[in-house]
């Protein structure tokens, strides 16, 4: 007290105190273990219980992997090798690997074609996913759908060229008229593309060579994981732009556009995907003229795309609603027109907010492609449940096959999820 009276407030430190190491009880492994594993009686009990369960899980699964049989003709062969011991019969994977990937009717000597298409897929989507890559790569991305189609389905190259030509003509007509009116440009472009395809059909039939360079492989021969990849990649890339259009249409000031979009979204969302697939498979056939050959994969692609576009539209609508109206007003007051302010201001922000939701839909859609096995298409799950499990050699090898399917899907979905998290971090510019 006496000190305080002589010098009540004024005080100044002249030398800063050095930083000291924490006491041993607050650092190191021992501290971590005490803090996280044995901090109380309950935690100690839980930790011990966890160790015991981990021990049992490992001791029962590790031999199954370690003793696994990788070379055998059939499940009986596996059993003979194992002689009653625990062990997986992984031989089914080595024996039927190509069937799991490509289906059981795709010609073996043509496997290189979808494999090459798969490898080129990475080149094509890289510039879309990573902005740092040279923009010129996008030309390859534009070309890729035609290239992949030609590689996987083959046939006359003129058919592929005519398809590409239709898109080019459509785009030229669109850009010619879009300045005067967007609707005129869009309708003109679509009509021009269809006319080109229709005319192209005659030309292609006339000049098609008897034996095309790449043998034509019909859709019904597609199968295995390749089918899941085709459906997943095509439907995700189509449903994103369609979903954006639907989300914007739902906000349109024009009542007709808004009503069309609302009805489409609500109807498609209200119906199970499996029903849409049955419609694609069976019922659509009744409405089409008897001899039309409307490709089954194309029908399924249309249905899955519609389904996921409706979901993506709702996710993006949430992103649009999250933007303050000030962003729209700032764009308007600077004189940007609707298309510009959407493209430059609103959508970049709304899509960024929507990334987790869009990825959620995309991952779900990719896994839902296995539903086509129900309408007797032999995708990965269809192959396992059908030709492989029904064969006398492999009847009963459930764990190994479905685990392989799970691993394949997991790798793809985990990759998508990791990319989206990276993208979110990269786009975080708002510094909240």
């Amino acid at each position, binding site marked *: 007290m006496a000190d305080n009276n002589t010098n009540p407030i004024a005080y100044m430190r002249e030398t800063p105190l050095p930083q000291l190491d924490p006491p041993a009880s607050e650092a190191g492994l021992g501290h971590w273990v005490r803090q996280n594993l044995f901090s109380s009686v309950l935690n100690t009990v839980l930790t011990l219980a966890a160790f015991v369960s981990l021990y049992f899980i490992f001791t029962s699964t590790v031999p199954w992997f370690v003793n696994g049989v990788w070379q055998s003709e059939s499940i009986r062969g596996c059993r003979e090798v194992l002689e009653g011991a625990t062990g997986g019969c992984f031989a089914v994977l080595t024996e039927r690997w190509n069937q799991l990937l490509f289906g059981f009717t795709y010609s073996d000597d043509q496997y290189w074609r979808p494999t090459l298409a798969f490898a080129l897929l990475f080149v094509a989507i890289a510039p879309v996913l990573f902005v740092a890559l040279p923009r010129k790569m996008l030309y390859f991305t534009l070309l890729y759908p035609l290239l992949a189609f030609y590689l996987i389905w083959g046939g006359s190259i003129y058919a592929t060229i005519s398809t590409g030509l239709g898109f080019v003509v459509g785009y030229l007509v669109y850009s010619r008229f879009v300045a005067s009116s967007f609707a005129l440009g869009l309708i003109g472009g679509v009509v021009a593309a269809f006319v080109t395809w229709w005319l192209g059909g005659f030309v292609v039939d006339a000049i098609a060579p008897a034996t095309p360079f790449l043998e034509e492989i019909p859709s019904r021969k597609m199968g295995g994981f390749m089918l899941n990849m085709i459906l997943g990649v095509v439907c995700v890339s189509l449903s994103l732009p369609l979903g954006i259009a639907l989300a914007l249409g739902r906000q349109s000031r024009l009542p007709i556009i808004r009503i069309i979009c609302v009805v489409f979204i609500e109807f498609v969302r209200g119906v199970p995907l499996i029903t849409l697939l049955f419609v694609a498979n069976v019922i659509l056939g009744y409405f089409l003229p008897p001899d039309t050959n409307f490709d089954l994969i194309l029908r399924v692609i249309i249905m899955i795309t519609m389904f996921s576009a409706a979901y993506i539209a709702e996710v993006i609508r949430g992103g649009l609603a999250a933007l*303050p109206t*000030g*962003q729209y*007003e*700032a764009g*308007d*007051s*600077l*004189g*940007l*027109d609707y298309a*510009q302010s959407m493209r*430059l*201001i609103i959508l*970049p*922000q709304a899509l*960024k907010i929507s990334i987790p939701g869009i990825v959620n839909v995309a991952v779900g859609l990719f896994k839902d492609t296995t539903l086509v096995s129900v309408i007797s298409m032999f995708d990965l799950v269809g192959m396992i449940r059908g030709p492989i499990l029904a064969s006398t050699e492999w009847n009963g090898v459930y764990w190994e096959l479905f685990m392989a399917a799970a691993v394949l899907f997991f790798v793809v979905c985990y990759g998508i999820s990791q990319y989206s998290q990276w993208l979110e971090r990269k*786009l975080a*510019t*708002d*510094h*909240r």
Partner: protein
Amino acid sequence: MTEAAKMQVSDEIAISIQGMNKWFGSFHVLRDINLTVNSGERIVVCGPSGSGKSTLIRCINALEEHQKGSIEVDGTVLSSDLKNIDKIRREVGMVFQHFNLFPHLTILENLTLAPIWVRKTPKSEAEETAMHFLEKVKIPEQADKYPGQLSGGQQQRVAIARSLCMRPRIMLFDEPTSALDPEMIKEVLDTMIALAEEGMTMLVVTHEMGFARQVANRVIFMDEGQIVEQNEPEEFFNNPQSPRTKLFLSQILGH
């Protein structure tokens, strides 16, 4: 400065509003507004909240639609014709209370976006103009940052620069300092004063009466959607006529 500034006002009419009325649903927000603004004039609009002052200036660049009467900006009649609206918006800059910068773009990109896409200015030229105006608002060193990294006062100065990059003939300010911390208000007002000294036609909704005294040619007082009183700043503050104005001034200047 006031004397020199008054010299710059020309006879040319920048904005002419005749018999304008606006409703929000059944609520009559703006009632029979008549207002003529000459080129180079600086007008401060004040009034209690809900008096329709923001709505009035938002009608001028068609952020709000008016239902009756006419608005003419630089000889262009504001109608539902989108071409006229776009034309007016290119000539009229606007600064908002909450800045409304684009958070996903850098400061430089915020400034060059409209010149590049609306005015079709080449990118290098647009960037030059942008840096010119950033220097004018005294934050050229922030060009590569994102809006979220700047303080409120800096963001508002960027927003002013963003409008100026379009080379507008008229600037609208909608409570530009209301969302700012007290120590940042001055830097924004200084920027606006500098702009006024250059002879920009300005309509400013604000409660900064010091700014009104120093810069305005005319102060307009609004209440319940009507223009109640307008006068030169000295007269307006020293000798208000209507009882409503007297009450308002006593409330905001009283402490």
